């Protein structure tokens, strides 16, 4: 391998691989450096107990942009679906479960009025999500500089807003900044439905249903449906298989990927990037360095605050980025039994968020660096659709846990066991026999997610998805449009516009920007 690269890309996360592939297809010679031994970043599968594997970070595919799937030819590079169009089932202790699929909701304590209101709410929020997509598929427009590309995006947004019609436009303006709790109260009676939709608005974040911007969080999640994902999908072989497919696509496009190659610093001089230095001291020169790492890692650790000008350093230090999400993995010696669920339903997305106050109380804890005593859960039992993830007869259960603090009082070692037990107890109250089926368990706290996936303070989205940190404010003013602080330095990860989730748009948009600016960057 030669070191004569046009672009060095730090981090083989999904956005990094997407960005690298587009750049290579545009004729750039690209090297991707990844600290971990496998590519994919948060699109990862890991064997947490002998024979038992699970998607160890993201577990559902519900936002991947179709252009990315198509342009990277992911299906011909090995991406297979274990299941698609899965419903969300909100669990009830007495087995009165609620099922939501697209705009249809039934079961639980849902009334006919709720059902009709949801159809209407779904249609309206789909329109709003479509509007967001207009801004997501291009770089975030700057407001102060008049530039044709940005003007077009603004015109599209403005026209889109106008096209909503007077009532919907004013409703969007009214709700986009406020919280899910109030909007749910306005629309629905069913506590279960309100709980389920609220959880959707804040998964991966450090927010409760009453936190401002959660309506935006909900719409953000809903863009997946605009991209054609009706319901949740499960990747065969776990999300790691998606990472592998992306890596294969990148390599086919001519990208060099070096695994187990941690970058120690991004090197800069006199206002421009000069290359990177690896942990082993090796230096690789490049006129363009793209960082798939989060903005705080990129600027604080890799570039160094001392190499930034004060305002940039200040803005980096002010990014709101504290994770509140943990992952629990259970290896089971058989299929668990949930009260009132049949085998077919076990393969859907199972949610424990019985009402909004349940989630809000769970969130209260994390504000004070404590873990929730009754956490909200988003559960997947991937072995229902993909038996290869466990030995014959065995199953795995994977749960996204809201909320867990990044730094509990006394450190995680003092709490890991208790918290694991507490989550298991919580699941067992819906699946009574499950405790006896557990062979092994693994808890990934926000601190573990930081260690394993390089996400600062374990934040899924590389920075909170609040209205103060999206669009032209993502990751911070002055660093929009992917380039920041230095000529030739770009961001392409979840910390950049539009944000997190396995969507691929940050990587795609960043590549477009780099290509557009040309070699001079």
């Amino acid at each position: 391998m030669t070191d004569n690269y046009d672009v060095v890309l730090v981090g083989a996360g999904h956005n990094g691989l997407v960005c690298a592939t587009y750049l290579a297809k545009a004729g750039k010679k690209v090297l991707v450096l990844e600290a971990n031994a496998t590519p994919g970043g948060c699109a990862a599968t890991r064997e947490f107990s002998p024979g038992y594997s699970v998607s160890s970070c993201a577990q559902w595919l519900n936002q991947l942009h179709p252009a990315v799937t198509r342009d990277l030819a992911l299906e011909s590079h090995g991406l297979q679906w274990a299941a698609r169009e899965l419903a969300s089932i909100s669990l009830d202790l007495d087995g009165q479960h609620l099922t939501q699929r697209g705009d249809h909701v039934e079961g639980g304590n849902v009334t006919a009025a709720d059902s009709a209101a949801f159809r209407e709410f779904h249609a309206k929020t789909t329109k709003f999500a479509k509007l967001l997509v207009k801004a997501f598929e291009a770089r975030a427009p700057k407001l102060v500089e008049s530039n044709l590309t940005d003007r077009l995006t603004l015109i599209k947004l403005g026209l889109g807003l106008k096209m909503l019609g007077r009532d919907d436009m004013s409703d969007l303006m009214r709700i986009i900044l406020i919280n899910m709790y109030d909007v749910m109260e306005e629309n629905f009676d069913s506590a279960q439905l309100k709980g389920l939709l609220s959880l959707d608005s804040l998964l991966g974040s450090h927010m409760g249903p009453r936190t401002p911007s959660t309506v935006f969080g909900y719409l953000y999640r809903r863009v997946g449906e605009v991209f054609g994902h009706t319901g949740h999908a499960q990747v065969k072989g776990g999300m790691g298989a998606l990472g592998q497919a992306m890596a294969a696509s990148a390599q086919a496009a001519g990208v060099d990927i070096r695994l187990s190659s941690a970058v120690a610093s991004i090197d800069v001089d006199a206002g421009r990037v000069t290359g990177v230095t690896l942990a082993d001291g090796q230096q690789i020169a490049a006129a363009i360095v793209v960082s798939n790492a989060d903005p705080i890692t990129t600027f604080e650790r890799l570039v160094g605050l001392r190499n930034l000008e004060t305002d940039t350093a200040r803005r980096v230090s002010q990014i709101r980025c504290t994770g509140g999400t943990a992952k629990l993995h259970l290896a089971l010696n058989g299929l668990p039994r949930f009260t009132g669920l049949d085998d077919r339903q076990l393969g859907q997305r199972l949610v424990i968020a019985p009402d909004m106050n349940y989630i809000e109380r769970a969130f209260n804890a994390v504000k004070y660096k404590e873990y929730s005593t009754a956490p909200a859960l988003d559960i997947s039992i991937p072995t229902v659709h993909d038996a290869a993830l466990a030995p014959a007869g065995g199953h795995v259960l994977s749960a996204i846990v809201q909320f867990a603090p990044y730094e509990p009082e006394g450190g995680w070692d003092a709490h890991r066991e208790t918290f694991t037990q507490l989550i298991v107890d919580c699941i067992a109250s819906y699946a009574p026999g499950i405790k006896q089926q557990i062979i092994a368990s693994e808890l990934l706290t926000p601190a573990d997610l930081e260690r394993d996936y390089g996400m600062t303070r374990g934040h899924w989205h590389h920075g909170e998805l609040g209205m103060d940190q999206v669009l032209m404010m993502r990751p911070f003013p002055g660093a929009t449009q992917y380039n920041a602080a230095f000529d030739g330095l770009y961001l392409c990860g979840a910390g950049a516009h539009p944000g997190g989730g396995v969507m691929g748009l940050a990587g795609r948009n960043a590549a477009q920007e780099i290509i557009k600016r040309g070699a001079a960057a």
Partner: protein
Amino acid sequence: MMLTTPFHSRIAAACELNCWGDWMGYTTPNAYIDVELEYFAVRCTTGVFDLSPMNKYRITGPDAEAYLNRLVTRDVSKIRVGRVGYTVWCDDAGQVMDDGTIFHLAENDYRICAYARATDWLHWSALGFDVTITDETAEVAALAVQGPTSCAALTAMGLTGLDQLKPFGLTEFDFEGESLMVSRTGFTGDLGYELWIAPHKAEALWDKLFAAGKPYLIKPFGTHALEMARIEAGFLQAGVDFMPAEEVVRNGRSRSPFELGLGWLVDMNKSVFNGRRALQQELARGSRYRFAILDVDGNKPANHSFILKGNKQVGTVTSAAWCPTAKTNVAFAQVEMPYGAVGDELVAEIYYQRELHWTRVLAPCKVIDAPVFNHPRRRATPPGNF
């Protein structure tokens, strides 16, 4: 409630005109007896100015030099221990936030003197650096002792050997058991020194200085006389000749160092400093404005005048004064590029009033290449015994 400086009892007693101003919240004399008389003390004998309200920040710690080097535009590593450097500092947009002086007191021990309050900016700038920042504004009393007989007067007060101190040098004396720091610095463009001492010794210092200086015709001077001297010497005043970038609300009202004629303070060889990226772009693209010193015809100070090229308005005056020693009518102007190059002939549109009668004068003026007062005694070491 206005603050007073540690010299206030002495200043109040000397301030016969009872003419006070406000300097960053401190009660400051505009004039003591007569502005011209005070100005001539600075130029002919010795004038004393209380500069205690100047914002003073102590920067210490292992990263102090690296920190300052990132903060300001010039290369701080070239300011050796015992030396003082004049500099500006910019925001990320390359716009001047302030100008001031850096005193290199000891290894990784600096004092930075600033026109504007800078606590928040200095602390934000400390992200990633191991430094301690202390606001010493109220902990250090300071007097500027300026004029041809200043060295002789201070020597008579007991500062033996002061004549060996070079311009921008820094030294220390004992004053009644307290450390008295003396720097050969000032804002008058003349031979002169600045004395820095703990506040509880301020009055004693004043008394001893004025007693020793009596044969040298020492006089206190106020802000108005300083204004004449600094314009004559070509010194910019923050808040007057430029707006500190942090205080600017409207787009485009701040200025870069290049636009203020301070490009010589910008060291583009430094790998990183605040504003570097923007200034690099400005160098490539060209500046919007030029700082010009104008020699204005006639004797009417061109305060607040528009500057014209033909019929086109191309600039405005920020400072103006009739300079008695140079016998020149000087104005500082911000002129739009490409106008204002040395030798450019412009017109100042001056309005002045006599007994409620307004008069408009279109005074021809010419851009000159240097300040009008630049006496060799300012630089001579030892200075002559005037």
